[in-house]
């Protein structure tokens, strides 16, 4: 259960953020300069690698109980943020993440910006847009992968999940050469939120000294309970039709994001 949950949570979190980063890089490359955009991606990945290399050993050095308390608290706070966004989007209070719309906006902004070269970078705007996209979208995922991995004593599995997700998204992105607007981002965000809250609750309470009934088996109750609670909140939070926000794209029952 734990290894599977670790892989799933990190894979989904990483895939969601990779889809968003891909949209930004696509806009920077298409509207400006592919070389500068790709240099931005490489630089962003290098910064993330440094952060992971610095944080990884530091986390491993913390005693397990303190680590669980610290990491549990952070995962719980992150999870509540992810799930809140997912519930708000699923219930129609917030517009679904529309990759096509974001791509068009980024494209227009990129085309309007001035051209400036700095050092080896031919187009500074394309570079910084890609760099920021990769670092900002990647930082939270790197943190989730590291904290999940270190708590489970399986950072390699977390890293494998993260790399697999990035590869899948990049391969699909390159194949379709368009924003990955059909990816059910909100459903994935909901699932990640559920995982983060469940594991954050479990590890946080354990780190604070609590003993769970059934030990690790408590997670088998926590995960579905949090998911059902989230689904119930989606149902309860749905406003009446006239109050639904106008910018929410229509979803058909067969749409991958229908209901989420």
């Amino acid at each position, binding site marked *: 259960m734990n290894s599977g949950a670790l892989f799933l949570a990190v894979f989904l979190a990483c895939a969601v953020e990779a889809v968003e980063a891909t949209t930004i890089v696509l806009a920077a490359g298409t509207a400006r300069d592919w070389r500068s955009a790709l240099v931005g991606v490489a630089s962003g990945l290098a910064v993330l690698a440094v952060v992971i290399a610095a944080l990884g050993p530091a986390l491993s050095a913390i005693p397990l109980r303190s680590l669980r308390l610290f990491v549990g608290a952070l995962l*719980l706070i992150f999870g*509540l943020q992810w799930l809140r966004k997912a519930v*708000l989007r699923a219930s129609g209070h917030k517009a679904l993440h529309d990759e096509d719309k974001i791509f068009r906006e980024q494209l227009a902004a990129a085309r309007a910006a001035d051209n400036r070269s700095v050092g080896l970078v031919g187009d500074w705007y394309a570079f910084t847009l890609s760099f920021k996209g990769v670092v900002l979208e990647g930082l939270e995922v790197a943190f989730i992968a590291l904290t999940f991995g270190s708590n489970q004593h399986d950072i390699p599995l977390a890293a494998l999940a993260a790399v697999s997700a990035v590869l899948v998204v990049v391969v699909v992105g390159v194949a379709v050469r368009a924003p990955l607007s059909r990816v059910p981002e909100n459903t994935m965000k909901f699932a990640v939120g559920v995982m983060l809250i469940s594991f954050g609750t479990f590890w946080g*309470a354990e780190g604070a000294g*609590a003993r*769970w009934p059934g030990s690790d088996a408590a997670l088998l109750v926590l995960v579905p309970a949090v998911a059902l609670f989230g689904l119930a*909140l989606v149902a309860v939070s749905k406003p009446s039709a006239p109050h639904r926000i106008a910018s929410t794209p229509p979803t058909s029952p067969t749409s991958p994001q229908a209901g989420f």
Partner: protein
Amino acid sequence: MRRVKAFLAFCYDFVIGDDWTVAVAVAVALAITYAVSKTSVPAWWIVPTSTAVIFPLSLRRATRRG
């Protein structure tokens, strides 16, 4: 100085997010769990119960903000 402020603002946004009460509630719940775990009373239920209370409240605030 401006860069330090920007970095601190980024850290706050990264960790705390757009509802600081959630972070405070989590910290308080864990502190209570720690205190209760020192007694003979079971403490595992405190964090899930706190989450079940704070999350709908945070959601409600967000929907009211629009």
